[in-house]
């Protein structure tokens, strides 16, 4: 039998050192955890200017004179909360937009209850979204809005733009799934076999806890073990603890998903992939992507495990617009909005793109030479080419 040389003495002495450090850390951590922590989310001031049922329209108070003719409406997903765009001062997409002089509105979908279980795509897109857009147009005097959608909110924005193209001046989609026929992301694999009817008929809405459990199960080693060990190792650092707790608050502040939306999203999109094929019908009308003729900016994450690039990058070639652009960021699903590196790039890039298209149509650039289906694709590697300025 081979005789191995195992440095047991060294390992043991290192473990003893680790134990001493852990003891010191625990003492410091108790001071940090018992101290007052700044963990509040969404601190940028806003007014709720309109409300229908549980759905609110937020209007952010401008930081400077509005530099855009067209207001921007941000549509977040029905999963988790829009507060992710305004995590904390200095790490806020909302703050960045306001600094650029954008007149910013955002939909807060609220917390659906069992009463909302019958609300589907039609109610959210032709109902709430359309009402909000009408309100903004009426209040600002604009004929159209710029629409920016995030994840499922991006899919809603695509559907809205196809159904109401006369209301949307520019469309920005971020980490937006439109092609569901891929096996790159685990969600795409798992949802293929999901009996959505059974779940919705039984539970009414899809419980946030079940959804969160599903998201944790996407990577249990990291999200259930490593993450909390990481917290344990840094819990003596106040800023780390504040950021960690803030993120935890956001992750588990999850509304239930209205049952009919879940049913339609799973069956029509994940299982039948109707959206990208322009076969989806909402409120008796076909969602024809050819009708999306306004400029389209499509941003997604190269390492997004929830909505992989393959689920996003077909949109620009499926729409009727001649002015389309893909941007693939070297980051994941949430990193686009919250990582410091992306903060430097993401919001300013959108602001710049919108600014170029804010005037009359005659001044709008036609980067695809007026030809449909020739989307420009930019891969932005923030890790190497865009080091943090601070």
């Amino acid at each position, binding site marked *: 039998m081979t005789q191995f040389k*195992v440095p047991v003495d060294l390992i043991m002495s290192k473990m003893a050192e*680790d134990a001493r450090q852990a003891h010191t850390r625990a003492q410091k951590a108790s001071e940090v955890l018992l101290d007052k922590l700044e963990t509040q989310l969404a601190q940028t001031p806003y007014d709720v200017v309109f409300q229908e049922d549980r759905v609110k329209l937020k209007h952010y108070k401008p930081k400077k004179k509005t530099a855009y003719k067209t207001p921007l409406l941000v549509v977040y997903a029905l999963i988790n909360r829009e507060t992710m765009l305004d995590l904390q001062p200095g790490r806020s997409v909302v703050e960045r937009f306001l600094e650029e002089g954008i007149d910013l509105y955002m939909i807060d979908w609220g917390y659906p209850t*069992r*009463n909302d279980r*019958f609300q589907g795509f039609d109610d959210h897109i032709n109902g709430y979204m359309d009402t909000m857009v009408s309100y903004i147009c009426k209040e600002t005097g604009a004929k159209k809005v710029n629409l920016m959608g995030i994840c499922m909110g991006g899919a809603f924005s695509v559907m809205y733009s196809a159904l109401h193209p006369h209301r949307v001046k520019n469309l920005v989609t971020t980490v937006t799934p439109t092609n569901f026929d891929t*096996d790159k992301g685990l969600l795409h694999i*798992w949802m293929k*076999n*999901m009996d959505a009817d059974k779940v919705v008929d039984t539970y009414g809405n899809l419980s946030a806890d079940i959804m969160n459990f599903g998201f944790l199960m996407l*990577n249990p080693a990291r999200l259930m073990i490593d993450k909390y060990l990481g917290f344990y190792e840094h819990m003596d650092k106040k800023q780390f603890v504040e950021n960690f707790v803030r993120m935890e608050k956001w992750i588990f502040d999850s509304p239930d998903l209205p049952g009919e939306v879940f049913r339609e999203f799973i069956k029509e999109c994940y299982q039948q992939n109707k959206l990208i094929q322009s076969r989806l019908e909402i409120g008796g009308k076909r969602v024809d992507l050819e009708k999306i003729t306004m400029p389209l900016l499509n941003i997604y994450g190269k390492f997004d495990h929830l909505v992989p690039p393959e689920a996003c990058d077909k949109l620009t070639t499926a729409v009727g617009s001649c002015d389309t652009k893909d941007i693939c960021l070297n980051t994941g699903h949430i990193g686009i909005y919250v990582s410091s590196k992306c903060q430097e790039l993401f919001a300013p890039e959108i602001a710049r793109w919108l600014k170029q298209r804010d005037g009359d149509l005659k001044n709008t650039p036609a980067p695809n030479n007026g030809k449909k289906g020739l989307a420009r694709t930019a891969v932005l590697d923030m890790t190497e080419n865009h080091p943090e300025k601070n």
Partner: protein
Amino acid sequence: MGNDTKDPFGLDALMTNWTQSMNQAMAAMAGAWPEEKPEEKEPEKGQKEGKGADTGKPGSDPAETLATAARYWQTIGSAMLAPETLASVLKGAGTIPSLSMEFGQAVLSSLTEFQTRLAENAVRLGESVDAYTFDRLDEGMPQVWADIYEKEFKKFFHIPQLGLTREYQERVNALMDKYNLFQADYAEFTRLCTLPFQRSVGVMQDKISEMAATGELPEDSQAYYQMWIKVLEGHFMTLFQTPEYVSALSKTISSLAGFTEARDAVLEDMMRGLPVARQSDMDDLARQVYELKRKVRRLEGELSRSKDSIT
């Protein structure tokens, strides 16, 4: 059946003996009272006339009632002792034991099958495991139990119920059935989720052996943890894409929904008598409000468009 010489302890022999002894006891009881001949019996002195006259009427005296009952029993008992009658009675009486017997047989055969498959699985223990592959997901015990349940036990919860409480009893049975199905699926799902941990331990052992052989063992315990968490993550990522996991996940979610549905149905039955609104009542109400809201929204739109067209 009915031949007690073949089996002195059989049900038919017992029945015959019991009926005979009951007949004898009843005959003794019947004989303990005088014959029904009141005219032959002189009223005792001082006895009220009425009472003496009453003794001859059947059922008028408790003792006489008992005697009559004993005689009825004798008649029935003798009839029962006839071989054809006894066989018929025993056939009916055998129904319940035969049901129990069937259940017992199901339990026994299941245990045997369970043991066999356990032994088959045990043989595979110790076979080498390849890292990051889940193409040989051994059939787990939960799945064996699920198969046995489906084949042997499920049917007992589907025996037709009768009478006034039929629907309620059916729902209770359905709840028990769905609970068992969910437990089986959940156990299989849990088993699959523990596989990456098991396999990671095996891979770690191999890695540590390799490093020890080359003298590259890290001194920092953190390094071991980092190694383990990477291996574990890799195993999970591989497992999650296997058809077995996808199927187990889907089945668990569906069977949990099935159990919840069955549980809610039983709870709603229980709440029927209470002065509170049930979930289904509230759902009906919510649907009505939802449909009314849609109607109002549509009418508002039409009104708005009409106004626009006029102006």
